[in-house]
């Protein structure tokens, strides 16, 4: 039984019928593709676009003007016991102008720059150190009003006799006010989803709390960037963040290693056993084969619980052994290959035997080369099943570095349950390689499906 991808029914449709079929197919295809389209579009959005334009589909373009027109207000610091200390409200007379929007108080600091005239803009905020209380602080924070241009803002803080420089530039691709948090302590995320700038000490050293009284100057530098770089940075934001927050590279390697090992092992052991069941004579062969068939009926739920216990007892829990070994031996593969081996003509085998080949040699040099399509099909399907396996790897592993791709993705979902741009980006990271492999080997896939799907 075989499918021909490029073959149709022979009869022709009349015009009305053809139009009807076309319309139905088109509606169906659109409904198939819309979720994928939404997935890609969402992954191309950054955090700010998600918040400000939840209904937007097409990627947003930063404003083209080679200028930044930002405002800073309400500079504050946070103590270890989460007390906010106001440092500057920019309430001075020269900051109080009607064209300067404020977040708090009466005035704001303008960061306005026209890059056609000026390479970059540096604004220093001098603090009167003697007026500041002598307390340690973990964070500096200020409100920033962006203009959607996506140029870069570099932050540096002079305090404790060191310079604390931002590990990464901030990209003000948003419109409106945002609270920016500059961490002295190494912290990955802000639980409230605010803008986070990680400050690193220069010269390098342990950064912890910094004495507020020693902070004398905060430098804000606005740097220009070409439009394409700003757009690229905005569109790849979710992908970069997703890739950084979980070791997807490691997950890929785990998945690849486990799937390859399972495929290789299963094809090898299945082919050996299938040959014994198809061609060799040994006591109890048919009874054993029936027993093999019976094991295919057993639901995974029955075996997974005791296998998990077995892994715990053997000390294999959370290792590659636990991921690979239980999946290595399959009754299904044996059954499928046996059926195929039965159809291989015996003459070649007999000829090889007369020439003095042993069983192993016949298997290796006659049976296997003749069964390449079946072996390839079994290999493809074992690989796909192993690549997509979820339940067993979920229970058999625990630590982050042992996770395979689907489990890693599920863990990612646990971590960012409502940040859909990140979830979609991570899903695409997991999905796209398999998708590409499929698109380039479509016929091979569908043919294999036919071979394995039904045995008549």
């Amino acid at each position, binding site marked *: 039984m075989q499918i021909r991808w490029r073959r149709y029914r022979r009869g022709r449709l009349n015009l009305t019928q053809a139009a009807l079929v076309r319309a139905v197919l088109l509606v169906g295809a659109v409904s198939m593709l819309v979720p994928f389209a*939404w997935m890609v579009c969402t992954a191309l959005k950054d955090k700010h676009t998600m918040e400000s334009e939840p209904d937007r589909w097409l990627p947003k373009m930063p404003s083209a003007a080679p200028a930044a027109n930002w405002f800073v207000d309400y500079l504050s610091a946070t103590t270890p016991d989460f007390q906010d200390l106001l440092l500057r409200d920019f309430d001075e007379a020269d900051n109080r102008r009607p064209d300067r929007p404020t977040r708090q108080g009466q005035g704001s600091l303008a960061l306005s720059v026209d890059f056609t005239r000026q390479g970059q803009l540096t604004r220093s905020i001098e603090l009167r150190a003697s007026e500041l209380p002598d307390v340690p602080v973990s964070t500096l924070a200020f409100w920033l009003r962006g203009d959607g241009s996506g140029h870069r803002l570099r932050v540096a803080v002079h305090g404790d006799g060191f310079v604390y420089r931002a590990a990464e530039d901030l990209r003000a691709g948003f419109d409106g006010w945002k609270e920016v948090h500059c961490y002295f302590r190494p912290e990955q995320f802000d639980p409230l989803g605010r803008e986070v700038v990680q400050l690193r000490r220069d010269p390098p050293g342990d950064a912890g709390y910094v004495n507020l009284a020693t902070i004398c100057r905060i430098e804000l530098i606005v740097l220009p960037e070409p439009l394409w770089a700003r757009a690229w940075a905005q569109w790849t934001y979710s992908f970069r963040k997703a890739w950084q927050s979980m070791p997807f590279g490691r997950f890929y390697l785990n998945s690849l290693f486990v799937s390859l090992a399972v495929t290789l092992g299963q094809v090898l052991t*299945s082919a050996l056993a299938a040959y014994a069941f198809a061609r060799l004579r040994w006591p109890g062969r048919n009874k054993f084969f029936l027993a093999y068939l019976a094991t295919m009926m057993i639901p995974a739920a029955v075996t997974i619980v005791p296998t*998990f216990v*077995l892994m715990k007892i053997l000390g294999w829990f959370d290792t590659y052994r636990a991921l690979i070994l239980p999946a290595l031996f399959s009754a299904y593969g044996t059954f499928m290959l046996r059926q195929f081996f039965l159809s291989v003509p015996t003459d070649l085998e007999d000829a090889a035997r007369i020439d003095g080949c042993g069983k192993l040699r016949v298997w290796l040099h006659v049976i296997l080369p003749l069964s390449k399509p079946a072996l390839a099909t079994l290999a493809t399907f074992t690989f796909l099943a192993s690549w997509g396996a979820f339940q067993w790897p979920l229970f058999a592993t625990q630590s982050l570095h042992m996770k395979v791709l689907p489990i890693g993705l599920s863990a990612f979902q646990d971590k960012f349950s409502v940040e*859909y741009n990140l979830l*979609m980006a991570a899903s695409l990271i997991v999905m796209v390689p398999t998708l590409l492999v499929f698109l380039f080997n479509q016929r091979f896939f569908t043919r294999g499906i036919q071979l394995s799907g*039904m045995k008549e």
Partner: protein
Amino acid sequence: MPSGAMRPVSSKTARRIDKLTSVLFVLPNLIGVLVFVVLPVTASLVLGFCRWQGSRLELSAIDWMGLANFAKLLGFTTDASAAAVVAGVALAAGVIAAAVVVVRRWSAWPRPVRWAAAAVLLTMGWGVRTYWAAVIRPQASDPLFWQALWNSLVLMTWGVGGRIVMCLAMAMLLNQRLREVVVHRTIYFLPTVCSAIALYILWQALYQPDVGVINRSLLAMRDALNAVIGALGGPAGWITWQPPNWLGGIGTAKPAFILMGWWHQMGGLTMLLYLAALQGIPEQLYEAAEIDGANAWQRFREITWPMVSPTTFFILIMGVIHGFQGGFQQAYVMTRGGPAGSTTTVDYFIYNRAFFQDQDMGYASAAAWVLFAIILALTLINWRYGQRRVHY
């Protein structure tokens, strides 16, 4: 031809060595199957009669429970008298026996008799259900398990039924002589090759009640309709319908799963199986039918449907087996079995009991064996009564 005939030496030892080397071929796989299938199955059966709780999994913590696990899973308490319960069981058995009779005679009866029999059967079933609900009022000792059974049954029935209808329709459409059909086949096949977990995450996002695309589109459509009504002079905001909560609603979570499943599998393996079956139907049959003046429906009913019946049977058997023991991934990724257990399938129930909730390996094993028994029974029923409807 026996291989021994070709060998000049045929002593007893040689034959024994021959057999031994044959066994060596099967040994690697056999050992694996023994250790990772037979041993766990046996252990699972034993564990089903035990309680084994605790994260340390000490062997000394195993308590023999006898049939207590199964009694808790399947048992119920009632205020009704023993006689009433016996009568209820007898009534239920009677309905099942009647159903068996009807299914057996089905093809021998003319159409009106079939309808009448089906109607009688439905009435009897409804009556027995009412009797149980009104007179016996059983209190299941583990209502969650019964709920999980019901959820699995609902998801499996709608999943398999919808799949058979949609995939056959899809295969017939994609089997037409149109240039763009090849592209369509690829598009409809896409979800099958994507990571299932990624798609579940995607659909969870689509189903979000407030920000999800589905509800936003529904609301937009409602507002557009309202605008049209307003423009035609009707009352403003006439339609006040609110879109459902999908995964968050007890009544809508299962339909959401079913819809997603259809989308997922509309053009997948089932469709390909049907496509292959359709391509295997000889064209002469259709030509002969057309000469005889058969219309499209008659051609489908009398040629296509019988000719693809082996495929349908295969899909039904596999769909029931996989459908009833599946559902863990969706439930785990999208709802964690909620809301209020409305998406907890038997599969999820078992793993939840074994690994998350009270970590009782014994109780989970017992539930797994109940699941096994049900699947076995369903498969046997399918096999027994389905095969005679298949035209090879």
